[in-house]
């Protein structure tokens, strides 16, 4: 008997995958609380609702996710389309609820943006990130990039720091070739299924797409920079990273990152709320949260002008 389940929620970008005719994909990777499914050139994630919503996710109640994900293995065939996701090997099908989808593009336009307030928050968050216990990844580079501190002497920082500086400078100058070169130096770099360089690029791209129209010191939008980052990174990194970067370039981000971006619109005295939102981002993965926050802060700083 086929077991039929209803997702708890789902993000808007995956809705068309269910609406079209059924197509075959396969399980890319399986974890305790998440399964990634490849379909053509995109990837869909089934998550336990204990995890934050992702731009490409459908979520299941924790108990259901535990039972379902337990039995899934990489390579298993998956059929997506005709209003369902089916995994024949497990006699399982998933349907989307009739409730409206979750929108992964935060409602930036609904807020009033003040460059002065955001600069205050950037400084607060930079110090907060620098104060975090460092386990690896690129987060330690917040010191040399934004706080005038010396750079850690590791092979990863020696490779990443020049590329991050170039990314910020080229973005301010709206230099596509420079952005592409910097991206080549970061895409796929570092530990993790989404390598650290990609997480930083995703945070950077999201800010360029979503906030550059409101916060650029020269009032010029820079969403083309995000598109360049996603295009150049795609062949150089993991499939999951490439998909998340493509979403970031569209301004579609994970729930916790979207909440932090919106928190930047809060007044300067709301620092506790901003730090609270940042801590949600930092708690994601081993290094991913810190890497994403680094990229986000670097992009916000880049919108102010050239970094010394």
């Amino acid at each position: 008997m086929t077991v039929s389940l209803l997702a708890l929620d789902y993000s808007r970008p995956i809705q068309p995958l269910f609406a079209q005719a059924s197509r075959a994909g396969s399980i890319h990777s399986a974890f305790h609380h998440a399964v990634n499914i490849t379909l053509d050139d995109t990837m869909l994630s089934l998550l336990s609702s204990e995890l934050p919503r992702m731009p490409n996710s459908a979520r299941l109640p924790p108990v259901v996710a535990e039972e379902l994900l337990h039995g899934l293995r990489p390579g298993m065939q998956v059929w997506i389309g005709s209003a369902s996701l089916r995994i024949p090997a497990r006699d399982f099908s998933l349907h989307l609820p009739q409730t409206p989808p979750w929108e992964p593009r935060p409602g930036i336009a609904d807020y009033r943006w003040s460059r002065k307030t955001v600069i205050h928050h950037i400084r607060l968050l930079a110090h907060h990130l620098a104060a975090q216990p460092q386990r690896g990844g690129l987060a330690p580079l917040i010191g040399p990039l934004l706080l005038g501190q010396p750079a850690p002497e590791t092979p990863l920082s020696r490779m990443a720091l020049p590329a991050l500086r170039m990314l910020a400078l080229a973005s301010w100058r709206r230099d596509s070739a420079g952005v592409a070169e910097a991206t080549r130096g970061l895409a796929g770099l570092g530990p993790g299924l989404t390598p650290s360089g990609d997480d930083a690029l995703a945070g950077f791209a999201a800010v360029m797409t979503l906030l550059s129209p409101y916060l650029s010191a020269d009032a010029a939008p820079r969403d083309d920079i995000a598109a360049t980052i996603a295009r150049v990174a795609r062949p150089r990194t993991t499939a999951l990273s490439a998909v998340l970067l493509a979403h970031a370039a569209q301004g579609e981000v994970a729930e916790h990152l979207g909440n932090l971006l919106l928190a930047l619109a809060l007044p300067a005295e709301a620092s506790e709320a901003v730090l609270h939102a940042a801590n949600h981002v930092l708690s994601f993965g081993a290094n991913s949260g810190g890497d994403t926050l680094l990229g986000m802060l670097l992009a916000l700083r880049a919108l102010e002008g050239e970094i010394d």
Partner: protein
Amino acid sequence: MVIHALLKRNTYYDSIALMSVAQAVKDLPGVVDVGAVMATSINCELLQNSDLLPVAFLAEQQTPPGPEDLLIVVRASDEAQAQAALAAAEQRLTSRGDRGATDSAAPLPVRSLELALQHNKAANLALISVAGEHAWLEAEQALRHGLHVFLFSDNVPIEQEQRLKALAVKNGLLLMGPDCGTAIINGVGLGFSNVAPRGSIGIVGASGTGMQQLICLIAASGMGISQAIGTGGRDLSEAVGGVMMRSGLALLANDPQTEVIVLVSKPPAERVAREILAAAQLAKPVVVVFLGTERFATIAGKAHVARTLTGGAELAVSLAGGDRTRVPGEGTLHKYNLAAERAKLASSQRYIRALYSGGTLCDEAMLLLSEQVGAVASNIPLRPEWALAAGETFRGHTALDLGSDEFTRGRPHPMIDPALRLQYLARAAQDPETAVILMDIVLGFCAHPNPAAAHVPAISQVRATAAAAGRSLPVIISLCGTEGDPQRLSMQRKALEAAGALVYESNVAAASAAASFVERS
């Protein structure tokens, strides 16, 4: 110094797992450095810059590794230590839950509706009791699997209730709930339920304790229950429209085992009540107990309207061919010498203090008390002006529903755990204006396993304390249960009476007894 590597094609671990493995391997003897990365070209460059690039190993690969492959590299003092480190890395990765190609044959624990259905394909009813936030989802899945649903969960949004009930009706199924406390289906009790004989009286109710009172009084008369279908407390609201009461009514109308139907609810929406009464014009007798709405008697047509749960039970027993005098109703009022008890009260003792666990029983008591003694203050007041203010515990005659949300948030229902009610009992007893304390005790499945044992010491103590202060303190118990219940009605009654409590099986009788202590002259 040697460099050894392990390549796992199309293999993915989360970064926390990889970092943990890398750190553990780094601590092994002879290991100088470890790298565990996805084999992107820039990570190969990173390995080279870290003196970790396994040049010879990579040269041996027929296909160069790529971004979807995991590369673990170890630099160690010698061959043996490097090999041991890689073996340890692989072992740790596997023990963390490697998802290999082979499927697990081990049976899965039954912790979901789907797995339960795989185990028992004949099941046709799901009992759902999960956090309200997720309850609609489970209920919808059950309905889509063709199952009737008993939805115990509360805090389900009304829009979801409307949608789920529409789906149930479309599929010819029952959605009992949300916030459905009681049902008896084919002799099987669900939720808070009592052990009653099978019989010819069917009940559809939007009130859990209201149904339990009916069931127990009917059982006491020697008659039995065919089915007792709960609808959830909001079913007869304007928003829901009595959808499930109509479904239940239709089912019982066609049920050959059911000869008499009883409908029970707290005050329904006017329009809904009229529609239900119109649907109740059946060949079978239908008794309607909509508390506080006797005005419907004029439009009831063939339906029989009762004012109280006790009255409804007596009518149903009579219509089903039983002896209504065997229902322990208001006729039991004077089994105790109430006048003698009243004579012992001090002049300061003027007010009734009712501490209920059942909302409908509390409602019914307030209706009767207000007719006999006037205003009754409450957290679920009959009139807005009788509402207790924030922080106010008692004001004149007072009836508290201690099972309502404000008292049960973060703690068990008082039918399960009487601790909170015993605190209120002590407070009421300390008040020199308290003339009589009225409480309900509900027996049956899910209720406290021995409520008399929990209440008797407290009742004895408050009565002794009051006596020491020169006051008599009557405690009246509305005891709702059957002899077949796990707690046994007679044992509970005996223990409570031994503590000096006056015990009635009819809530109407209990409330009337309480009123007799303070009735206006």
